[in-house]
C-alpha cells in the first residue's frame, strides 16, 4: 500500500507541476471569502468601539487568517468531478483497477494542498500585517491543531464523497452541493466565528458537521478556545467523521451496484 501511494504521489506531483497557475488560483479561492468577511467584521467592530463579544479587530483578523489556512487544508472538490465521471462512464476503467477510486482522489487532494501551502502562507503573512492580527496561540494549541485539522480534512473529504456518490442515483449533484455549500456558508464559521452566531444558530452549528470542518480548527489554531474545550470539540469532529465513514461505505456499495457505465 505504501509503495502504491508513493507511486501515485510522484505521478500526481508531476501532473501538478504542469498546472502551476491553477495552483495559485485555487489558493486564492481559499483567501478571498475570508478576507471579505474579515473586512466586514472589522467595520462592524469599529462601529461598536472596536469590540464585539470577546473579539476585537485584531482577533477577527487572526480568526479569518486561520480560517483561510484551514479552508485550504480541508478543501475537497470531488463532488464536482464525480458527476461527470459517472455521467460519461469514465468511472468504469477506474472500477476495474485493483485500487479503490478513493485512493486516487486522496493523493490528488494531498498533492494540491502540498503545492498550495507555500504561496498561501506568503499571502496570509501579508494579510496578517495589513490587518495587524493578534494570535493567542500557545504551544498546546498548535499541538491540538495538527490532529484537529487532520480530522477536519478527513471529514470534509469523506462528506464530499458521500455527496458525490449521489451521482449514482441523480445527475443533480450540482444542486445538492449548492445546498450543502450554502448551509456551510452559514454554519461553518465563514460569515461569523461560531461563537458570534446569534441565539439558536450557534447551538445548531455545533450539532451540524459544517463547523467541525472550518470554524473549530480555525478557533483552535487562533487560540480562541481553552485546550479542554478544544478536546471536546475534537470529540465532535471524531463523531462526525465516524458517521460519514459508515455512511460512505454504505452509500458507495449500494451506488456501485446501481451504476451502469455507458454501453453496459
Amino acid at each position: 500500500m505504501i509503495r502504491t501511494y508513493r507511486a501515485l504521489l510522484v505521478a500526481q506531483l508531476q501532473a501538478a507541476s504542469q498546472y502551476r497557475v491553477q495552483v495559485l488560483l485555487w489558493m486564492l479561492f481559499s483567501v478571498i471569502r475570508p478576507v471579505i468577511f474579515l473586512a466586514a467584521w472589522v467595520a462592524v467592530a469599529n462601529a461598536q468601539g472596536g469590540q464585539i463579544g470577546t473579539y476585537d479587530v485584531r482577533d477577527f483578523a487572526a480568526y479569518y487568517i486561520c480560517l483561510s489556512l484551514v479552508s485550504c487544508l480541508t478543501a475537497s472538490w470531488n463532488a464536482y468531478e464525480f458527476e461527470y465521471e459517472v455521467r460519461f462512464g469514465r468511472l468504469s476503467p477506474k472500477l476495474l483497477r485493483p485500487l479503490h477510486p478513493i485512493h486516487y482522489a486522496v493523493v490528488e487532494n494531498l498533492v494540491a494542498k502540498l503545492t498550495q501551502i507555500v504561496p498561501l502562507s506568503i499571502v496570509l503573512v501579508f494579510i496578517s500585517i495589513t490587518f495587524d492580527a493578534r494570535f493567542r496561540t500557545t504551544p498546546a494549541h498548535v499541538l491540538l491543531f495538527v490532529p484537529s485539522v487532520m480530522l477536519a480534512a478527513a471529514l470534509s473529504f469523506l462528506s464530499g464523497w458521500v455527496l458525490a456518490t449521489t451521482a449514482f442515483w441523480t445527475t443533480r449533484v450540482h444542486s445538492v452541493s449548492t445546498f450543502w455549500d450554502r448551509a456551510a456558508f452559514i454554519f461553518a464559521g465563514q460569515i461569523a466565528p461560531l461563537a458570534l452566531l446569534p441565539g439558536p444558530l450557534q447551538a445548531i452549528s455545533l450539532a451540524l458537521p459544517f463547523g467541525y470542518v472550518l470554524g473549530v480548527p480555525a478557533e483552535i489554531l487562533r487560540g480562541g478556545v481553552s485546550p479542554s474545550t478544544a478536546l471536546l470539540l475534537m470529540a465532535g469532529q471524531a463523531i462526525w467523521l465516524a458517521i460519514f465513514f459508515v455512511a460512505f461505505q454504505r452509500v458507495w456499495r449500494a451506488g456501485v451496484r446501481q451504476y451502469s457505465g455507458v454501453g453496459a
Partner: protein
Amino acid sequence: MTRYLRLLRLFFRAELQYELEYRLNFVLEIVETAVVTATSVGAVLILFSYTTVLNGWDLGAMLVLLGCFYLVQGFGEFALQPSFEKFLENVRLGTLDFALLKPASPQFQVTLRYFRVAQLAQMALGAVVVAVGLSRIPAIGLAEAIGFPIALICGFVLIYALLVALSTFAFWFVRVDNLMALYWSFMDAGRFPVDVYPGWLRLTLSSAVPIGIAVTVPAQVIAGRLDPFGLLLLVVGSAVAFVLASSFWRLGLRSYTGASA
C-alpha cells in the same frame, strides 16, 4: 440598431426554448438562486445583529447594496458568462470562424449570443432585496429614481467591458479560463460596500476589477447618497471602458487564425 435588437430577441428566444427542454433543471436552478440569496441576506442580518451601521451604511442601505450585488452578478451570469465561456471554447477549437462569416458585428455575435435564462431569477430576487431595503429608507427623490437605473446600466457596461478586455487575451494565449475564473471569484467582494476593504484591495476592486464600483455606486445613488459628480464619472468611465475594450478586442481578432489556417 433595430436589426441588432431583433437578433438579440431571437438569441434570447432560442436559449429560452433550449432551457425549457430541461424543466427540472430550470426549476432547480431557480431554487438554488433563491437559497443563495436568502443565505446572503441572513449573513447581513447576522452582521447587523451586532451593530446598526457598517461604515455609515445602515441595514436598509446594506440590503439595497446586496440587492444591487445580485442584480449585477445576476446580469453577469444571465447575459455574459455563457457567451464568454463559449467564446473561449470557440477560439480554442477554431470554430469561431462560423461567427466571423456571418453578416453582423463579430463582437456582438460572440459576446451576446448565449443566455442562461434561469439566472433572470437572480436579478429578480436582487430587485426584491433592493425593494425591501428601500422600504426602510424614508423617501426617495426623483433624482435618485432617475439616477439609479443609469448607474446600474453603467455597472453592467463596466462589467461587460472588462470581460471583453480579459477575454481578448484568448486570441494570443488561448487558455485564459483561469483569468476569467479569478475574475468571477473577485466578484464575491461586491457584496459589501467597497470602502470596507483595506487600501490595496479597495484599489483592486475599484480599478482592476471594478465590481466594487459597479455595485456600490448604484446602491449609493438609490440610498440617497447621490453624488452627481460621482455619477457623471461613472457614466464617462464606463463609456470609455466600453470603447477601449471594444477596440482592444478588434485588435486581438486580427491575430485569430482559424482552425487550419
